[in-house]
């Protein structure tokens, strides 16, 4: 995942989870906190994933 504020690329499952620790909404809010700047990035919703939608990077992947 790429942070929408500072552009830092991080692994949503590893680093993103770490940055969200201590938040009472952790894991239930649909957002992932950037470990570098703290900006909250939105996760792709489960509904969209089911229909095969997902965020694409600059190479279209």
């Amino acid at each position, binding site marked *: 995942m790429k942070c929408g504020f*500072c552009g830092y690329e991080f692994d949503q499952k590893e680093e993103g989870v770490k940055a969200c620790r201590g*938040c009472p909404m952790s894991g239930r809010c*649909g*957002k992932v906190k950037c470990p570098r700047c703290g900006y*909250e990035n*939105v996760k792709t*919703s489960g*509904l969209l994933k089911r229909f095969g939608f997902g965020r694409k990077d600059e190479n279209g992947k």
Partner: protein
Amino acid sequence: MSEKTLLRKDNIVVYDERIEMALKAIEENLKTNYNFSKRAIALLLLQGDEEITRHVKNREKTYDKIEEIIAKTKNLYKDPLQYVITLKRQEKANEIVRDVSMNTSGEKNFSFSDLLDKITMQPLTGVPILILILYFGLYKFVGQFGAGTLVDFIEGNIFETYINPLINNLVATYVPVKSIQELLAFDYGIITLGIRYAVAIILPIVGTFFFVFSIIEDTGYLPRLAMLIDRVFKSIGLSGRAVIPMTLGFGCDTMATLVSRTLETKRERVIATLLLALAIPCSAQLGVILSLLSQKPLGLIIWMGFVSLIFLIVGYLSAQVLPGEKPHFYMELPPLRMPKLSNIIEKTVSRMQWYFLEIVPLFVLASVLIWFGKITGLFDSLIKLLSPVMNLLGLPTQTAEAFLFGFFRRDYGAAGLYDLQKSGILNGPQLVVASVTLTLFVPCIAQFSIMIKERGFKTAMAIVGFIIPFAFLSGFTLNLIFRLLGVNF
């Protein structure tokens, strides 16, 4: 270039004389072994690294002397030492890159992207660009299209014409108990009020807001905005870093209050929490207010100017009252990008889904509480209690309902105000006074509970204790100004 050349001595960062002298003096006072070079430890001490400072304090008998050297060095500079040291490192990194790389693509050294970078961050050009973004993105698209056209269509053509009459009929026919009928339908029912507010008023507004926000986010404009407003924010005790919680606050103030923990100093965190609770409207509240006032552009300008003025004055005064170190801010700018439509739609839909799942249960709960308040008479008593305050603000008594809704949830209160405006009981100045007071008025329950968790009970209570009278005083003052000047629109 060989590794040997890269590591040659003149590639080591040499700071200015004052810092080099301080480093030398600190190194002489570091007597124990740290498994790192003493220069690295001294640099971390000068930058105020908390962990290293704690270690050194525990291990060095001469720590007092080290502390004195750090304090003296700090006094020699206008900017924090961390900033001074980082700037020098950046300078050296640029110098090394220049030495080892060359432009083979034939591109000009100063590209269009560089130009955009410059004009978005320079106040002279950056402020007009920001105003254009706010005008077209928020006022035209969210305020007029989302909160006007879309809401009118979904509310008027779908809910008012088909859904509400159908639900009212079904409930009246099949539910025999009157109080249960009122829980589900009619004026304050779960479906006819709670679900209608969520689907017909709030969702189109936040949907259009999230669309604009995703475009802004994907272009890389946000960090440039942080740089642009850094100077203004410094005067109110914050730094450009606070643009993160402040921007997120325009989405949801509760989440933004949580994010304020990323600010560096306690002073910054308290000021940001206060300003978020006081003067930053959440997305739905902002959208509804834009929609309410979009028919009266003068009212919109007064609302925006008044709330911005309060943001700056309260921020400035808090920065004077609250003790603590002045903040500093720098960041590496990611490149500007051309946003992809598929990504923007995906982000918008995801945000709308999360938001919708979050608000529906709360809106239903709000309807139940209002219903409970209605059948017990508590709701009417609270409205009676607020009536004199409404009169002082020059507002009709019914406006008290929107304020009560607003404490439960900001967007619910704004939707209540939207309903009142539609019934035509508020004139222009009254609409502005109600919008200003409701914007400044207490944070919703969720934000208040996060304020207690993040800043502590005393600070949260002090903030709310300040906000409630201040919001009404501001509304009262604005109403008085309107009356004295005979303003009517």
